[in-house]
């Protein structure tokens, strides 16, 4: 299988890449890990006139745990992040060329338990050596795992152009399948999620027929407990059981303000199962998948709670 012909550009700096995008972004597709894009080009679902390989741009593969405004040095290449975004809250930031396996191995990435729990479940070990988290989000396969993690955790995406860098909430970034709000003159250079506090936890549950397959069902969860031990914040999003990654605000709302319990988590699971709309296919019937959503929601929340209560790191 061979892709259609394309021009190949290989910029050696971010400025050079952004200049190219500002001049001819309409015809350019960005190549990062290529583990989704190249298969699509081989099937000719994608046929970009120009492929811009960003892999030679230095300093884009960073993963940093920004512990807050009291810390002056918060990781390499932090200048890529817009300075106006200083909320002072601890966050995890992941640069455009951080590979999935970089996230698996990263100490910094453990700052967000949903992220660190999902990373080993992305694709397969060989694909994880090249594929990138930011590339997955920018590609926006509607059955991708990372988008659910980001929706559950309330991520922010940084988009760079020659005009500067802007940030977009993940809900606004993910427009439709294979479509995002990244403009032709822009490049996604990083994504940011909240770091969990020592009273927070998160988890990703994934059922797959075989390693490297799409999720049959995926469930991303995260929790923060308040000083009273009640749930202060909750995130829940589902993979492969709707036309796109599905955030479930009703289930999140039922959790917030409550004391954590098995009954409460079961209720969230029922709401999630009712909110999704899975297709019956070779991976399972709709009823089966809906059942797995409720079970995984309970399990994921229980796992998140265990971490939040200090039972596990």
């Amino acid at each position, binding site marked *: *299988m061979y892709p259609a012909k394309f021009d190949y550009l290989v910029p050696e700096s971010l400025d050079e890449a952004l200049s190219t995008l500002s001049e001819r972004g309409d015809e350019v597709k960005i190549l990062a890990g290529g583990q989704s894009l190249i298969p699509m080009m081989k099937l000719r679902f994608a046929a970009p006139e120009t492929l811009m390989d960003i892999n030679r741009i230095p300093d884009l593969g960073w993963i940093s745990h920004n512990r807050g405004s009291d810390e002056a040095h918060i990781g390499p290449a932090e200048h890529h992040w817009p300075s106006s975004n200083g909320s002072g809250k601890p966050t995890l930031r992941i640069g455009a060329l951080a590979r999935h396996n970089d996230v698996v191995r990263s100490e910094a990435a453990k700052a967000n338990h949903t992220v660190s729990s999902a990373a080993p479940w992305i694709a397969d070990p060989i694909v994880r050596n090249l594929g990138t988290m930011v590339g997955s989000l920018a590609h926006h396969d509607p059955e991708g795992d990372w988008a659910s993690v980001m929706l559950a955790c309330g991520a922010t995406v940084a988009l760079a152009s020659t005009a500067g860098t802007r940030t977009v909430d993940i809900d606004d970034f993910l427009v439709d399948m294979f479509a995002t709000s990244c403009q032709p003159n822009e490049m996604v250079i990083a994504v940011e999620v909240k770091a969990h506090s020592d009273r927070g936890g998160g988890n990703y549950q994934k059922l797959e027929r075989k390693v490297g397959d799409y999720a049959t069902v995926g469930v991303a969860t995260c929790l923060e407990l308040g000083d009273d031990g009640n749930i202060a914040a909750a995130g829940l999003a589902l993979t492969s059981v709707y036309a796109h990654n599905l955030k479930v605000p009703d289930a999140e709302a039922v959790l917030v303000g409550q004391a954590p319990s098995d009954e409460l988590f079961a209720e969230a699971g029922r709401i999630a199962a009712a909110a999704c709309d899975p297709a019956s296919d070779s991976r399972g019937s709709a009823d089966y998948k809906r059942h797995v959503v409720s079970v995984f929601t309970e399990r994921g929340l229980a796992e998140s709670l265990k971490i939040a209560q200090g039972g596990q790191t």
Partner: protein
Amino acid sequence: MNVNVTINGAEKSADVEPRLLLVDFIRSTLKMTGTHIGCDTTSCGVCTILLDGTPVKSCTLFAVQANGRSITTVEGLKQNGELSAMQQAFKEHHGLQCGFCTPAMMLVGTAFIEDNPDPTDDDVRWAISGNLCRCTGYMNIVKSIQAAAATTREGASS
């Protein structure tokens, strides 16, 4: 576009189209056929090579992306004309039947035991989970990688 690579220690260069896949550059341009093509869809892993020491699927990478980088294929595993510890272990423990997935399995195994010199069987199975074998049931592949890890540990401690 000109591509220069160091493959198994030898420098090679060729003028290629940007859309030439790395696996075809290795097999057709450089005439080294130890690297196989299976599914051609990033699933089976038989085209795995080491790029600067890291396993990647060469059907899902363009040759131009490897410009200036170092490639190891199965032809580069032998050392001083002798089988490497991994190759020897696959031979002794019958870590193959038809042999089609074997070059990739040995390369993945070689990179894996460098990172994890004393793995559990589960670690090994996880490491090779991006590589399909349709003959062996994986039992002897796991055994072979474990044996190579043991040999390498003994070599390091002696």
